[in-house]
């Protein structure tokens, strides 16, 4: 960078000052945006560290007089039973993400690597499915769930309603369209010669999908996994309608346990919300590289 700057400086004279100014302006802007974006988070952390008696007596805009402590975090952890609800969400998110990726990558593979009569039409249908708001179908879906019998070994009440498997299914159904769209765009960038040469070598279609295409799609799959995990993790809606058992609910609803019927300890709630956000942040950090790349997935070829 310094070499580059030096090189430009030596070439043209009036530019350095302007460039320095614009860089300073850029950094000022970036720092300002950082502050704006981080402020709510920092504020939440600050209030989460203060006891409720302090903020009740002195207001939220005050310096701590009751000391700072992690008490709210430990209380939220136990009172909202967070470890339990983290697991509940994992039961839904992990199979949901894996199933979605398997199905979507198969579909995308078929639509991007093979020429058949309806592949564009099928892709359009899947894409159109993305545009359908979930709320539109909730009433028929509710009755379908309530009237679909399941064998006892997958459902403890003999129904699709009020089961993890029901929530997993609806996530898979709703996310597959988007995932197919993104993955097929990515797979279009893979030259068809690879598939064809694998065919010539005698690999069957499943083998090509698994051994040739999927390894090439690793960045796209990682990006999709991150996105899907965040989507499913943040979902509150499906469990609200399609589940009735309080102890099967996902983590987002565990936060509601920290809100009183009348009185809410907002400091405690802030601590709980921060804790609930941790897994999403961890997943993001783990897949950060892919996630940023994922934002431009399919941008090169549509």
């Amino acid at each position: 960078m310094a070499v580059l700057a030096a090189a430009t400086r030596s070439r043209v004279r009036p530019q350095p000052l302007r460039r320095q100014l614009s860089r300073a302006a850029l950094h000022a802007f970036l720092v300002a945006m950082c502050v704006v974006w981080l402020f709510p988070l920092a504020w939440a952390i600050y209030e989460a560290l203060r006891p409720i008696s302090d903020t009740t007596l002195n207001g939220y805009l005050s310096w701590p007089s009751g000391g700072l402590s992690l008490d709210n975090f430990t209380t939220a952890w136990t009172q909202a039973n967070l470890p339990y609800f983290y697991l509940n969400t994992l039961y839904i998110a992990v199979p949901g993400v894996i199933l979605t990726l398997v199905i979507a990558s198969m579909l995308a593979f078929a639509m991007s690597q093979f020429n058949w009569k309806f592949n564009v039409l099928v892709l359009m249908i899947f894409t159109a499915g993305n545009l359908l708001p979930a709320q539109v179908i909730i009433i028929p879906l509710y009755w379908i769930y309530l009237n679909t019998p399941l064998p006892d070994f997958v459902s403890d009440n003999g129904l699709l309603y009020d089961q993890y498997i029901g929530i997993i299914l609806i996530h898979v159904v709703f996310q597959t369209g988007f995932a197919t769209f993104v993955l097929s765009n990515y797979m279009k960038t893979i030259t068809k010669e690879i598939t064809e040469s694998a065919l010539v070598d005698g690999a069957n279609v499943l083998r090509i999908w698994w051994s040739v295409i999927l390894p090439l799609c690793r960045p796209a799959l990682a990006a999709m996994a991150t996105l899907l995990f965040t989507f499913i993790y943040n979902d509150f809606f499906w469990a609200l309608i399609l589940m009735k058992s309080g102890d099967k609910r996902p983590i987002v609803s565990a936060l509601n346990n920290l809100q009183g019927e009348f009185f809410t300890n907002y400091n405690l709630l802030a601590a709980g919300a921060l804790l609930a956000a941790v897994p999403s942040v961890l997943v993001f950090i783990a897949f950060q590289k892919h996630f940023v790349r994922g934002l431009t997935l399919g941008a090169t070829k549509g």
Partner: protein
Amino acid sequence: MGNKPPFGPSALDLDLSRRDVLKIMGYSSVAAFLAACSSGTTSGGSLTSTGGTVTVGSNASDPLPKKGMEMVNAAFTKANGGTVVKLNTVDHGTFQDQINSYLQGTPEDVFTWFSGHRMRFFADKGLASSIDDLWDKVKGNFSEAFATSVKGNDGHVYGIPVDYYPWAVFYRKSVFADHGYKIPTNWADFKALCVQMQKDGLTPLAMGDKDGWPAQGTFDILNLRLNGYDFHVELLTGKQKFTDPRVANVFSKWAEITPYYNDGLAGMTWQQASQLVVQKKAGMYLLGLFVSQQFKAASDADLADLDFFAFPDLGTQYDAEKALDAPIDVMMMTKKSPTLSKDRGQANAYLQFWSKGSAQLIASTAAPGVIPVANDTDTSGYDALTKKAVEIIKNAKRITQFFDRDSRPDFAGSNGMQSFLLSYLQNPKGDITSLQGKMQQFWNSLPPEA
């Protein structure tokens, strides 16, 4: 059976073949099976049964009420021959949001709910079971006001009242003592006190209406005092019109005290507004007894300093009713529970248990802020605030449930009355007639409730 008979088969002179033995064993096992089948249900004339299980859907998700619920369940199990209570606790916000789909799906046998229109609505839709036979056994333990509160539109009983809490004007004893304020009993004194508080540098009345519902408490009490219980209930159920001049009176009366509210009330929650009272910046606050939780969050000393008085008389014939909002919580029986036919006896026993003062006291002791309703409750352990709350409600000839429990939810909610009252509070001297027109228009635009 496995033991050898002392004298051998010959002693009884029975000549049973192997097949006969099998036959007898077969018959007896059928009989045993039939007996086993019937033991889970109510038998004959008995309304309740012991043992078995009962399932309960509960919105008591706050730590203390949840603990109270679990303690009552444990006591019930002990008292009812080991009946297992399967509790499904759902946080109250979600419970309320999904009550419709919950009751139509596979609900538990018994569920926690509210009295008023909210109860009658689900009774009308056939999603709650009437419990007339059980009520006949326990009604002696409830006063008239509570008996009325659990009746559906069809005259049947749909719930057991378990607790309630009053709405009143809350203040700090120390603030009143320091300034030498007296409890106002009529409108003129009330307004004079507001003027005096303002002179003393206090915000006379706290109000935080960001969530929309707190202002409905003031509307309720003014309408009750000015126009009476009957008009209020009829207005909220559409039998009277919001364009009625009597409603205009409510708003003009209200406008006499709106100048005494704190600034920024539209952006403040009730908790933020009540902090003004905790911090001695505001003098009085018309709210429910739950405001005590905000004081308790500050410190026990602050809680001990909290007191309240009934809303002052307005000089009308309806003052004598001493009516007030005192929302009642009830336990109800569902209709569509897949286990209810099997558990009906236990569900009855469970509701009967909740009708006792002893059970209600367990719950309210674990979670202060609500008061038991059963007549046989042991009141000797009540704290000062609870004793006073009982007193103020005892004086009331009429009890209402609060606007959003007495009216249909879509009218009371954020698209309806909540937003109308907010816009009123932002401009109390504005065009009330057009506001009333909007209220009535909105009511008329709502689809039939069914």
